[in-house]
């Protein structure tokens, strides 16, 4: 049962990722990215991390993509004439070749990783909180809150019409 769900979600994720990079209209790309994020959330849940799955939907699909959609709709972005046309065919060919090399290399590494039994673990939110607020990650946690503050001030400063 879990297997079917995993493969369905994975197929959906890959399909909508292809739509994201292939579709000419950026708003369709944005909606396809939302589908990808939600299917990734399902996969996170199947990998035993319900907290991260919920967080993926709340933060990524529910907030960041809404931001993307707002900007796309307010700037009234047009469809491109052709989906990929930068620098002609040469750049496209080089890009595909580089990515294929990356995939082949990583695939070779992965083939040496044997699937073995995964130890059962406690992925509850309480455990996550214990780690997040432990001395190991506490400083990073506080630093990210300052990062968000900086991003808030920065994006308002950049997007304001008259400073």
């Amino acid at each position, binding site marked *: 049962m*879990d*297997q079917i769900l995993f*493969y369905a979600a*994975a197929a959906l*994720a*890959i399909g909508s*990722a292809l739509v*994201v*990079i292939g579709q000419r209209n950026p708003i369709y790309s944005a909606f396809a*990215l939302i589908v*990808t994020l939600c299917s*990734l959330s399902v*996969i*996170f849940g*199947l*990998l035993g*991390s319900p*907290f*991260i799955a919920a*967080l993926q939907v709340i*933060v*990524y699909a529910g907030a*960041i993509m809404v*931001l*993307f959609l707002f900007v796309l709709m307010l*700037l009234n*972005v047009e469809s*491109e004439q052709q*989906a*990929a*046309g*930068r620098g002609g065919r040469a750049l*496209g060919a080089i*890009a595909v070749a580089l*990515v294929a090399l*990356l*995939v082949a290399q*990583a*695939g070779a590494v*992965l083939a040496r990783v044997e*699937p*073995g039994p*995964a*130890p*059962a*673990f406690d*992925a509850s939110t309480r*455990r*996550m909180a214990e*780690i997040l607020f432990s001395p190991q990650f506490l400083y*990073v946690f506080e630093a990210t809150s300052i*990062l*968000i503050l*900086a*991003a808030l001030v920065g*994006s*308002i400063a*950049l*997007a304001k*019409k008259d400073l």
Partner: protein
Amino acid sequence: MDQPAFVHDALLLSLVLFALGTLGVFLRKNVITVLMSIELMLNGANLAFVAFSRAAGTLDGQVLVFFVMVVAAAEAAVGLGIVISLQRHKDTLDVDAFNVMKG
């Protein structure tokens, strides 16, 4: 719930998503689509983190995913702010139009 095959397949999926994101960054003309491809790459990395966290049995990978999500949110916000300023400046969102530093 020992499903070891998931970890292996999830790693393959993360690889595919990362590769697709990279292709998107290279090949697309619209700045916002490039940003969306970057988000796709970040999600591929997140999936790899979660898969390895599952394989190792610790939660450190998931905590890092939490931080990656926060950084991605901040980066998306600032990136889109930059896009709005660019649009106001040149009235186009084509990446090839912003080549003022070209020699």
